[in-house]
């Protein structure tokens, strides 16, 4: 990768809080113009990484580069990076217009230009005509948009988003996902997006870094992360994971390594069904049935030990049977190619 294409680079970065390693020797690069998600549970170090890029934290070890320049000791107000905060952090004593103009006011731009550009930004986030209102008079989703406009008006190279949709309800969150993605495409700015929601990370990003215990467990495209989880943690955190320990795998004749398999790769069949070439099967009993409308989720207890989750689509073109019920004996059938061996020695 050419260094001019790199927006942000972490080089062996650690951040310690007392004895706690919030970020532990992390190295990765974010490409210019990329929608990059940092995904992980709370306390995994993803937000600290974001704050390191913003300049609110400084690395204890290692260096951070923005566009090839070492910024490890540069204060936030001298970095060409802006942040959308989780609580929006709108200035309550200023109107929407003043909030959006704030970065330009600090740079002492002429009032006419400030007004024009703030107008454009409010247009971009679809809040034209809201300039005179106070933040307290806006809904959560509108405040979110104002925060976005304020962070974008200074034309940063990198936009940092700290769980920006966390406080919104589901419907609004889905709308904003589409819109954020569209704005990122339109402006061509690098977005670094922190979230604990794996659905958000998979649907919006070009690449995802999965964080755990202050380290990057896996970095790749959403499809790579989902289809080829390298560790048990990634398999479990992203999507529904079926993890079979080595002992169970051996008993059902699926080799001697533990592996994970995605629930939609498994087919439910009657116990009498023959297993095809290159396939694998395990018999068990349905323990519970969860109906989700478009899908149904079955939890199957295996005779060999352990449990597997199976997801079936409730479409007309569906399988041989419409529904199964709890307590029924079933045979689970899958292709060997769908098994994903898990790196040994990695604990969840």
């Amino acid at each position, binding site marked *: 990768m050419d260094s001019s294409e790199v927006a942000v680079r972490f080089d062996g970065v650690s951040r310690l809080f007392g004895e706690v390693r919030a970020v532990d020797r992390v190295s990765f690069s974010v490409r210019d113009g990329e929608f990059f998600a940092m995904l992980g549970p709370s306390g995994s170090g993803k937000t600290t990484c974001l704050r390191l890029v913003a300049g609110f934290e400084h690395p204890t070890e290692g260096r951070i580069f923005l566009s090839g320049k070492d910024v490890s000791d540069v204060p936030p107000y001298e970095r060409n990076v802006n942040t959308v905060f989780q609580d929006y952090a709108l*200035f309550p004593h200023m109107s929407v217009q003043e909030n959006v103009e*704030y970065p330009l006011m600090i740079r002492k731009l002429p009032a006419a230009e400030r007004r024009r550009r703030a107008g454009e930004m409010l247009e971009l986030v679809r809040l034209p005509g809201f300039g005179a209102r106070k933040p307290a008079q806006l809904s959560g989703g509108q405040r979110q948009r104002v925060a976005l406009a304020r962070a974008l008006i200074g034309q940063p190279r990198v936009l940092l988003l700290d769980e920006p949709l966390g406080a919104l309800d589901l419907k609004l969150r889905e709308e904003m996902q589409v819109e954020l993605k569209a704005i990122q495409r339109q402006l061509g700015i690098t977005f670094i997006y922190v979230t604990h929601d794996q659905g958000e990370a998979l649907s919006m990003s070009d690449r995802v870094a999965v964080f755990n215990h202050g380290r990057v467990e896996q970095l790749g495209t959403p499809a790579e992360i989902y289809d080829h989880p390298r560790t048990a943690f990634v398999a479990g955190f992203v999507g529904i994971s079926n993890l079979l320990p080595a002992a169970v795998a051996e008993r059902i004749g699926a080799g001697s390594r533990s592996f994970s398999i995605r629930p939609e790769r498994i087919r439910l069949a009657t116990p009498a069904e023959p297993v095809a070439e290159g396939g694998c099967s395990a018999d068990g009993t349905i323990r519970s049935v969860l109906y989700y409308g478009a899908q149904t989720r079955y939890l199957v207890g295996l005779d060999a030990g352990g449990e597997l989750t199976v997801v079936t689509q409730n479409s007309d073109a569906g399988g041989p049977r419409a529904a199964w019920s709890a307590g029924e004996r079933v045979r689970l059938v899958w292709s060997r190619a769908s098994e994903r061996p898990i790196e040994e020695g990695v604990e969840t």
Partner: protein
Amino acid sequence: MPSERRRHRGKSEGGTRPGLALRLAALGGILFLHLPLLFIVLYAFSAEDKSFVFPPPALTTRWFAVALEREDVRAALLLSLQVASVATVLALFLGTMAAAAVWRSSFFGREAISLLVILPIALPGIITGIALRSALNLGGLPFSFWTIVIGHATFCIVVVYNNALARLRRTSPSLIEASMDLGANGFQTFRHVIFPQLATALLAGGMLAFALSFDEVIVTTFTAGQQATLPIWMLNELVRPRQRPVTNVVAVFVIAITLVPILLAFYLTRHGQDAAGSGR
């Protein structure tokens, strides 16, 4: 139906209404607190200047003119205004700094410092007074205008500090980060974000401090040299009276000058609560 509902509501309201005895007791309490004030105001207009007789034989506004003419009244009033203003400005500066330090950073002994700042208002004024007097003597400082200011600043700082800290604690720390993130340095962040958040709290704290300083007697007694502030002058006047109603006229001034800032402070902080909480 509506009439029935109305009757129901009336009944439930009657249930929460206090009894006659309680209402009389409350009225008695309020009269006990405020009737003497009314007498002060009334006798400022009394035509009789040797003793207080009720009712006053005649009413006059003459004493207001007399009070304003008297050199000792004007000197005392001026001194009190000056002391209160300087002590308030000092308190605004130091109190805000102390509040910002305690809020922003965590350091060893932070809670102890916080307690030490608040202590002067909990401590009896006479202790503060004696302590300051002996400290000033030990330091060889002559009693002056400035020693009174120092004495008053001890408790004025507390009021400002408490107001500022309460407001800061309701302010989201991410506002400061947002400002820095958007290109503002420390000074610009203070000017455009922190100060506007604090403004009404500081105004309220400042006015309260001013009012406290303006009618302070005990600490002033111990830290003043030959000068008499307005309350000290009044105390002296009661001991050796001449033109009694003039004292009452001055008392009316004091009531006005202290009451207005306190009411305004109350009004401002009440409003400030909504404003400060709304941004989150």
